[in-house]
């Protein structure tokens, strides 16, 4: 089973444009962090420490669809296409209000110019979870820290501050967690309104509330759910569901994908000496 999962992860990494950063590691290394999903200690929460990754196309399009060309095919050819994807939504579609859907359609038409992730802006929750690179959970009694390879972003989940809120909004928001049986339930509030859920213009307002559930269903899987509420934009709550896979290859560890150098051409290219364009290739900036 482990081999099959390994194959799935490696195969998916080959397909995704961003790919899975990997490095030739010392072959004698083994991933020493392979605990079972449930702690042997009676009453203790499950052990979800380790390196995890969503495999699929949720970061491109939560509603799924067929493969399409993308802006990157101009230079990367077949490597730059956006693959076909599954639908990751419990209800099949994102329930935008009529007015909000019209705005989404506008964004979607020129998505690569508007998508905050193109600019290397922090993707926020839930999108950061299913960006196509791994993340590492460091689980403690009072806090859970999640470090994401994509963008070197991170967040702290407070298990010791029930009912609290942030003093200020932030890109990753404010996360308060609790254990409900085997599920880590995290309520994320106070996110900036500048993030999307995927690359199809899926915007939200400053009233976004995300409730995540991380439920282990084996040593190497977590069922991930994110329920989205935003009364300004959606007609009702909707839920993303996808599995998270443990990265099991020998020596697997969180690497580094600092995305600023990758985004500078898009963000600042028009301001380079001798630039032949007057406007940036991305919008909503400065």
């Amino acid at each position, binding site marked *: 089973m482990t081999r099959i999962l390994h194959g799935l992860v490696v195969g998916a990494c080959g397909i995704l444009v961003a790919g899975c950063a990997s490095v030739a590691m010392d072959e004698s290394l083994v991933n020493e962090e392979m605990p079972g999903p449930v702690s042997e200690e009676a009453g203790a929460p499950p052990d979800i420490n380790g390196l995890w990754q969503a495999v699929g196309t949720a970061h491109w399009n939560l509603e799924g669809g067929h493969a399409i060309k993308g802006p990157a095919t101009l230079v990367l050819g077949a490597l730059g296409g956006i693959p076909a994807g599954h639908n990751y939504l419990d209800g099949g579609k994102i329930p935008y209000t009529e007015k909000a859907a019209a705005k989404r359609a506008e964004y979607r038409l020129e998505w690569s110019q508007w998508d905050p992730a193109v600019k290397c802006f922090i993707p926020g929750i839930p999108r950061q979870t299913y960006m196509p690179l791994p993340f590492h959970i460091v689980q403690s009694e009072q806090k859970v820290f999640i470090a994401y390879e994509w963008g070197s972003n991170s967040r702290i989940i407070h298990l010791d501050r029930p009912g609290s809120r942030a003093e200020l909004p*932030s890109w990753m928001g404010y996360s308060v967690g609790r254990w409900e049986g085997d599920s880590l339930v995290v309520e994320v509030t106070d996110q900036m309104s500048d993030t999307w859920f995927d690359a199809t213009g899926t915007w939200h307002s400053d009233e976004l509330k995300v409730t995540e559930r991380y439920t282990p269903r084996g040593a190497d899987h977590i069922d991930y759910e994110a329920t989205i509420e935003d009364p300004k934009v959606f007609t009702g709550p909707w839920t993303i569901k996808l599995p998270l896979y443990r990265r099991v290859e020998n020596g697997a560890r969180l690497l580094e994908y600092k995305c600023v150098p990758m985004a500078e051409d898009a963000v600042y290219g028009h301001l380079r000496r001798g630039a032949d364009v007057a406007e940036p290739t991305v919008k909503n900036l400065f």
Partner: protein
Amino acid sequence: MIKRILLSVAGLVVGLAGYAEVPMKSWGNPSLEGQWDFKSATPLSRPEFWKDKEYLTPEEAAEFEGNIIKGRAEREQKEGEVREGLDGQADVDVGYNSGFLELGSRLDDSLRTSLIVDPPDGRIPKMLDSARERNRPYVEMQALSPAGPEMRSLTDRCIIGFNNNPIRSGAYNNMMQIVQSPSHVAIHVEMVNDHRIIPTKGGGAIPASTRYWKGFSTGEWEGNTFVITTTNFKQFATPYGTGPNVVLTERFTRLDERTLQYEYTIDDPETYDRPWTARQQMRRTSDDVYEYACHEGNYSMPLVLRAARKLEKSGQKDKNWMPSWHKRRG
């Protein structure tokens, strides 16, 4: 003999009492967890006016700290004034004022006159001429009108922070948070919103050709001290102007509920004529580490580039792109 035994027993009691103050994790390692404030008024390198004085007395320390606070207050009074003399940049120079700065005003609890504890003179060893030559293009590049973002510093670009790796007191964002599990220690620094995830049982090795902005870190517990070794930094992301083969060793030791001792050693024979070590005591705080979304709010970069293009268009030459603090420091 009896006196010696009594002293030994007393020492044991004191030792155990001290040990008991260190919070421990359930799996037996000291807890490094919490939010830690590492701003400090103690200079990295011992100022010449202290000559060979290693420690201040409490009275001397109080006077030194008082002078810092007084001097800072006087400068704040002048912040609204238009000043000339900073190479024509006046108050826009660097762009930080007291509202932004978060400088340390307390000396390290050790009352040492420098954070550097080795060499014994408390001063940073001489940088080799060959190292200065190696670094010269990067430094000089920042004085030029930038053709693109790559000509500005890595901190201007929000790629790495100026007080990370090693962690040291800087102008602001002197905060970090640690969360740990049996297998990993997570270090989250406020500056540039950055983190490191360090394995507690080694972490292997990578080829010399593989380079990361934050370097490649391995970790291990040596008794009650967590030791991180970092190599493989990308060019110019190395600490203190060091070269590609620098080895950074960091040591974290929880001293008590409120104090985390942090020590780092810079070892690079291609840059300094000997290894050197700095040590400071971080203070536990209930303040949160905030999200410093540097790139997302980097209004400076497009304005700098726009200004450069505007000057070029107008035919003006300006070789004054280095902030004055950099020139003063040399």
